[in-house]
């Protein structure tokens, strides 16, 4: 495997109670790219993300992340290795403030122990200050400062999506998995979110794998598109290549051939 590829998916299959969600899927993601997963509803896109960060365990196949083979990966382990993730239906901590939600993303960097934090000893205080500074950076980067102390549950949907992106981003992931980051947004909000994703990719060098339904957004954002249909891969290439692929057109338009 070449060093240019951050993630390889090899022959992954997944089923629920006998129903195949993903069958024998293989593709790879190059370091530093934005890779879009597209496909009709029920094509297995979200299931695939869940396999990538260990929420689901595949029936067979393997993942190679940063040149390491992962047969079965626990979500915790995935986070530790630098795989960040957002969810289709926001999975934020609703009763906590925006800044506290971001801070939870830093847990894997926590070094001070229980007693140090309980008694407010210097190392814990230093760490807390460091974490706060990091959170302020992310707040600024995603232009979330006006809402920093607002309870997340009371925010508008689009803002919640941005907070969730921030919570993944704060841990400085090497691979960011975004499940429909622009679902339910208006055109203005979508443009904004696209800009943030592009900035993250360009300025921070984070590799992004995202699921998106809006083809226009996908074509503008990513250079690599993987198309799924009924858990199989039907297209893989640049946007132009994929758009010209008859199988992809069939999947989207339902043409029988």
């Amino acid at each position: 495997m070449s060093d240019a590829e951050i993630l390889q998916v090899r022959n992954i299959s997944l089923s629920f109670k006998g129903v195949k969600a993903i069958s024998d899927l293989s593709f790879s993601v190059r370091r530093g790219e934005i890779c879009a997963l597209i496909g009709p509803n029920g094509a297995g896109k979200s299931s695939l993300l869940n396999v990538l960060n260990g929420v689901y365990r595949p029936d067979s196949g393997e993942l190679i992340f940063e040149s390491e083979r992962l047969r079965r990966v626990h979500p915790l382990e995935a986070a530790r290795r630098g795989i960040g993730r957002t969810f289709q239906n926001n999975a934020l901590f609703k009763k906590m403030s925006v800044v506290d939600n971001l801070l939870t993303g830093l847990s894997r960097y926590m070094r001070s122990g229980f007693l140090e934090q309980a008694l407010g000893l210097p190392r814990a205080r230093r760490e807390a200050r460091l974490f706060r500074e990091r959170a302020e950076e992310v707040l600024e980067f995603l232009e979330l400062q006006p809402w920093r102390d607002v309870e997340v549950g009371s925010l508008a949907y689009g803002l919640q999506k941005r907070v969730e992106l921030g919570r993944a981003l704060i841990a400085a992931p090497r691979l960011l998995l975004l499940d429909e980051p622009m679902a339910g947004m208006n055109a203005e909000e979508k443009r904004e979110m696209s800009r943030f994703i592009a900035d993250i990719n360009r300025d921070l060098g984070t590799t992004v794998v995202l699921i998106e339904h809006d083809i226009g957004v996908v074509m503008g954002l990513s250079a690599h598109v993987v198309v799924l249909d009924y858990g199989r891969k039907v297209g893989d290439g640049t946007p132009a290549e994929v758009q010209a692929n008859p199988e992809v057109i069939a999947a989207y338009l339902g043409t029988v051939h």
Partner: protein
Amino acid sequence: MNVFLETLIGGLLAGTMYSLVAIGFVLIYKASGVFNFAQGAMLLFAALTFVSLREQGVPTVLALLLTVLVMIVGALLIERTVLRPLVNRSQITLFMATLGLSFIIEGLAQGLMGAQVRALDLGIEDVPLFFGEIMVSQFDLVAAGTAVALVILLALLFNKTRIGISLRAVADDTRAALSIGINLNRIWQIVWAVAGIVGLVAGLLWGARQGVQFSLSLVVLKALPVLIIGGFTSIGGAIVGGLIVGAAENLAEAYLGPLIGGGITPWFAYFLALVFLYIRPAGLFGERTIERV
């Protein structure tokens, strides 16, 4: 061997009484997702009402009817003042509300009808019957028979009547049931009333056995391990769970108790439930849900 069989059978029969309490609980949980801690208090209230009416000279049948009426009115009140305002709140919130409800019902029951122990004579003689060499309590047999009859009645209610069918629809998929025009509040009222009546039956049997008194409301604590073993959503599970708990408790007290100091019934059922829980986290008959993220 005979001692073992007697202990086992005695336990199984006592277990049907646990099942009765658990069934009222399952009904409510299935239809409204409420973990009803007040089931024990309802049982106490029903039994106390019946006994008080009898003491006033009201004939048995009329007293029974009046008590049923009281339980129905109670169900309407609960639906109106507790369930409706708390709709769409978390299950834990609803559970805590039923904890408050149990305090209200217990306080009312004892405040209005007194706290002393009342004898309740259902006219069932508790004489030992012998099957071969094995002794069985007649009372236990009657209680078990009543439980079986009640379960058959409930099964008919659920499978053959319109109300029963809409009730199952609600339990299956609340949103879909709403969309086809089923009145959820009505369903809740009915279910709580039915649970109240099941509570009355259980309360009478338990009351006849140990006297009608405050400790009746603690029967709910007995029902919880039964529910854990059988699952919160299955009436069949409640029955099997009751039998398992009844039998295991009796056997454990007889054979394990002497080894570790006795008096282990208050917690043994819970430990049994924990063991089951570890093996099957959603009960024997409960459905395991796949978490979607």
